[in-house]
């Protein structure tokens, strides 16, 4: 199946790492024996004017004055921490761009690095001219302005969003954590409970589904079961404290915690309360999971438990044996993460990682394991277990159950190979 979310062939390794590699090459290759960090080694061959015992140049003159940036941007030294967008997508209107997971800490994705998936480009919507229409099996069909929606009692919650095709089941697999599962991000969302808005219109008997439609050029349509709409669904207008970014549905999106990304309809303009699903193109010919026997699973809403080690991970390099913290993220559409196990011996044995608070329902959870690398080749991997007891499977287990053509909902354990020179690569590629 042609899917624009497929990994491109040549995703660039960040130039920062390239710099580190080249810099260490300058001083005669890999620095191991003396334990000198390669960054110090590379600096030694370049500019020592800012290093001890000298006083750094940025202390000898005032910095930029207040107001130099009216909307703050990252340091120019972080210019390579950007969205990961393949250079050989078949097209860029229905396409996706990935979060650089391996370059981020904690559980919150900065708004500028949140993953994107659009089906008809990013519309530019004037919020004063945006309306939400709610109609169908309701007592009172209603139209809301954005000001109306912000009058309702508000709520803020932290949840992940993940595209269901993240990654595919077949090669070529990507090189980095972002290539593999970068269609994943997490934010604090603020909005109004969808339940309150539905109650405002009054649900009629027989209301079983709500068909949500976006105000984009795809008029993307997905059907949401009424149980989810009356549970934790939210109409979100803010993300990490500021209004949604255009790429995330400005001025309004549906948020369905734990459900596959495309159902969280962006640029939300219409909610049609119905007795049965729309069976739209995006829930029949796409986003259905084909099995080897020719049947296709439909309405596969939930993103099951999953985890990935982000450090060390593909494209990175351990510069020296000795202490290294293994860290990564775990998440489940079914609730909280209960445990994450890590193996550093190619799956022969596993140990429980530390979970960083807060551990939230349907949110990323950061895990850590202190590790001493002995300089020998190793394969490391993580395994998430959620509060339902579900254990993240291996790719072999998934392929055994689903074959190679189901495309969506690959939540496999992903191993990284560490070579004796410290280079980290995808062990399954």
């Amino acid at each position, binding site marked *: 199946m042609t899917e624009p979310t497929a990994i491109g062939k040549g995703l660039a390794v960040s130039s920062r790492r390239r710099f580190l590699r080249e810099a260490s090459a300058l001083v005669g290759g890999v620095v191991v024996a003396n334990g000198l960090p390669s960054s110090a080694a590379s600096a030694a061959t370049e500019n020592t004017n800012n290093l001890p015992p000298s006083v750094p140049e940025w202390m000898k003159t005032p910095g930029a004055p207040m107001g130099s940036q009216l909307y703050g941007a990252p340091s120019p030294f972080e210019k390579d921490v950007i969205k990961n967008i393949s250079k050989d997508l078949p097209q860029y209107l229905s396409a996706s761009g990935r979060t650089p997971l391996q370059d981020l800490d904690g559980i919150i994705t900065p708004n500028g690095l949140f993953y994107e998936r659009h089906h008809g480009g990013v519309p530019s919507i004037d919020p004063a001219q945006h309306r939400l229409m709610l109609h169908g099996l309701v007592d009172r069909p*209603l139209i809301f302005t954005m000001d109306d929606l912000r009058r309702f009692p508000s709520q803020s919650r932290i949840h992940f969003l993940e595209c269901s095709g993240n990654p595919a089941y077949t090669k070529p697999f990507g090189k980095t954590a972002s290539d593999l599962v970068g269609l994943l991000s997490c934010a604090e969302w603020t909005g109004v409970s969808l339940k309150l808005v539905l109650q405002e*219109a009054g649900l009629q008997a027989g209301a079983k589904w709500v*068909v949500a439609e976006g105000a984009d050029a795809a*008029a993307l349509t997905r059907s949401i079961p009424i149980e989810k709409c009356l549970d934790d669904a939210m109409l979100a207008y803010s993300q990490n404290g500021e209004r949604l970014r255009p790429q995330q549905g400005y001025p309004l999106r549906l948020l369905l915690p734990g459900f596959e990304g495309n159902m969280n309809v962006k640029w939300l303009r219409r909610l049609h309360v119905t007795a049965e699903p729309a069976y739209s193109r995006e829930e029949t010919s796409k986003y259905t999971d084909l099995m080897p026997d020719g049947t296709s699973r439909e309405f*596969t809403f939930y993103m099951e438990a999953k985890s990935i080690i982000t450090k060390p991970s593909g494209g990175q390099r351990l510069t020296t044996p000795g202490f290294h913290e293994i860290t990564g993220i775990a998440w489940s559409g079914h609730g909280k993460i209960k445990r994450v196990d890590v193996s550093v011996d190619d799956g022969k044995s596993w140990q429980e990682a530390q979970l960083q608070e807060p551990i939230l329902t349907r949110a990323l959870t950061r895990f850590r394991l202190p590790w001493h690398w002995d300089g020998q080749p190793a394969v490391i991997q993580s395994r998430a277990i959620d509060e339902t007891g579900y254990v993240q499977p291996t790719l072999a287990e998934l392929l055994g159950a689903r074959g190679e053509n189901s495309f969506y909902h690959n939540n496999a354990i992903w191993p990284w190979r560490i070579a004796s020179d410290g280079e980290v690569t995808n062990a399954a590629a």
Partner: protein
Amino acid sequence: MPRLEMWIAAAAFAASAAGAVAQAQSPYGIGRVATPAEIAGWNIDIGRDGSGLPPGTGSVSHGREVFAQQCAACHGDNGEGGVGDKLAGGQGTIATAKPVRTVGSFWPYAPTLFDYIRRAMPQNAPQSLSNEDVYAVSAYILNLNGLLPADATLDAKSLAAIKMPNRDKFVGDSRPDVKNPACMSGC
């Protein structure tokens, strides 16, 4: 009349006079009532049974012309695919190791074709085709898949009557479908 009741009566009068404020049974009284004309203008949903399909007709032959002008650049002259999805062929491949998913081989409901083309195609100008042209393009794509004769004309009733070959092959979500034993040592 006590002062509070007077205020309530006045407010109720104002609400009914405005005619658009959400009624008293709304818990918050936020939003205004959508008129039938407003709903009709925005509601473009077509059910799998063809409910919501508009009046009008379109022939395979007219659809061939519209397709050549509006669709072929991305989907190929005969729906063979390109930048856009492959639209025709693939029947009999879905249960094989190399499934070819097209309208004819995979889509379960024919009315969805009208719904999707009208709302989202052509990609550079969605919602620009007339209903007649959408019927015609739907007819042409169904013809490319051997599901409609070359001399056929499609309307709401005939589109809803087409049984797609893959219709009965969709099943519910049976996950969790794997069980990792979570071995801790000696694995």
